[in-house]
């Protein structure tokens, strides 16, 4: 198990990515040394006590000099506060968190990373470390509502990774959903040599899982639920697993502890997320 830390770190950089996204960097060498793709951190910016709960974010990138990065979409008070922080401001960070991490199967050379909007955040860390760890080069299938909802796109391109883009309004790449692209791509690949690693909104993950299961393509998904502790202590972040035939009882697992990355076949995908 990973050693967890709590640090008061100083913001090194806040970089706005388009209008709605922000990349935040701080230095934390011990945390950086432990971090693996799929890990997340919880962050608190303000000493005023507002917002009440810490905010969870996937580790987006680990830089060589022990800096860590998150990439987030500004959606409410907590993310706005973080986006407005200045270099030198103190943030309180706990991590790396989560025992369920992305695991690349070296025997399946067709590695599809599937991202919906801000779901791309943990996948850059994975894409950057994968070639050295596994000698495999992934392909990114990236969907967003508009061309502005494809943060970090250039970072993948700069790695020399093939990126296949879909936007709902057709503003970049082909018009449609990332799962439309996935259907196209999967139909041309040998399922026995293919694996999927995905992060994005629940309906997207459910659809991706639904396409992989009948083909026997392993699919890992990184999930998000509202969290209180982020440490496995409160059971607040639970999701339901597929009913296990051996046990009649409903099985709930903690996204923050057993996850955030799960084998999609284990998840009970409800009609409404």
């Amino acid at each position, binding site marked *: 198990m990973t050693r967890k830390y*709590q640090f008061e770190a100083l913001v090194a950089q806040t970089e706005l990515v388009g209008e709605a996204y922000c990349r935040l960097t701080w230095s934390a060498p011990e945390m950086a040394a432990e971090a693996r793709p799929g890990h997340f951190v919880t962050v608190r910016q303000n000493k005023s006590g507002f917002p009440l*709960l810490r905010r969870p974010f996937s580790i987006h990138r680990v830089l060589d000099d022990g800096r860590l990065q998150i990439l987030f979409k500004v959606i409410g008070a907590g993310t706005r506060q973080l986006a407005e922080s200045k270099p030198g401001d103190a943030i309180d960070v706990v991590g790396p968190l989560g025992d369920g991490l992305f695991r690349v199967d070296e025997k399946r050379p067709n590695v599809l990373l599937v991202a919906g909007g801000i779901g791309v955040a943990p996948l850059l860390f994975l894409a950057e470390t994968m070639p050295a760890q596994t000698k495999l080069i992934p392909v990114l299938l990236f969907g967003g509502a508009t061309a502005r909802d494809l943060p970090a796109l250039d970072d993948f391109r700069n790695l020399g990774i093939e990126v296949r883009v879909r936007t709902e309004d057709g503003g970049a790449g082909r018009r449609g959903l990332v799962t439309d692209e996935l259907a196209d791509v999967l139909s041309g690949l040998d399922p026995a040599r293919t694996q999927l690693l995905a992060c994005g909104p629940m309906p997207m993950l459910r659809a991706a899982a639904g396409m992989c299961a009948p083909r026997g393509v392993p699919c890992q998904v990184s999930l998000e*639920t*509202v969290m209180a502790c982020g440490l496995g*202590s409160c059971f*607040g972040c639970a999701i*339901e697993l597929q009913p296990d035939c051996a046990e009649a*009882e409903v099985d709930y697992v903690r996204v923050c502890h057993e996850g955030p990355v799960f084998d999609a076949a284990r998840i009970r995908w409800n009609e409404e997320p």
Partner: protein
Amino acid sequence: MSPLDLTVDLGRGLRLRNPVMAASGTFGYGLEYDDLVDLSQIGAIVVKGLSPQPRAGNAPPRIVETAGGMLNSIGLQNPGVHAFLAEKLPRLLERNAIVVANVYGEQVEDYVYVVEQLSGPQADGVSGLEINVSCPNVKAGGIAFGVDADLLGALIARLRQCTDKHLMVKLSPNVTDIAMLARIAVQAGADSLSAINTLLGMAIDLEARKPKLGNVTGGLSGPAIKPVALRMAWQVAQAVDVPVIGVGGIMNGADALEFICVGCRAVQVGTANFQNPQAPIQIAREMESWLVSHGLAGVDGLEGTLNF
């Protein structure tokens, strides 16, 4: 080194290292915090509610953040008392933590079973038992033990016969006369009272016209409930002469000291642990510096000194 002796003796074997305990359900079994927090520095750790058998808990979503607080409907997901004794307790004791076990049941027999297990030789290291009476009694049509004087009195009297350990009864705030229920619990044999558990609440998504919690309703905690908790802790402290432990919305040393001032001997912090895992230790330190700066030798100099 601490300048003051902050230990608190709550009686019948329950001695706290300092007046700040971690509240049940908000600090797990302590071990989740092992990398981050020195567990031996916390006044005592009240572990998550234990039932006779493992419980799956409620349908998600289980948490919603609300103005100044949060709602939870965890549904007491827990591994059961046996797993606690076998897997968690020994490791907690290795960390030199002071352990209070929180007990949950849906019928009197459940409580009796868990209390007996926690009073046996395997549970030697458990310093006290906190009885969560905010649970629905399935045999009494789902009415919570803690809101009915007869149910509460009978339950505590029965548990008193099952254990020599310190019995702390955690009062429900979802009642009209908490002082009356406090007296009943003490008459039935409670060694101390903790007040309060969460307040029943609800949150909805207006656009979808749906409840935000899978369980529809949940328990409200955090700063939003502090005034209610303080009022109730004060009423309870006036009504009984056993130690009262204040719980509800405590986020810093000053909040904790307010509870002492209205008559509590110690406090528990819950939601604050989610904001900062160091909260119990930090709050105890803040209390200490306040006491020092006010020329007091310990919390007892402040206890129940509210002026009118």
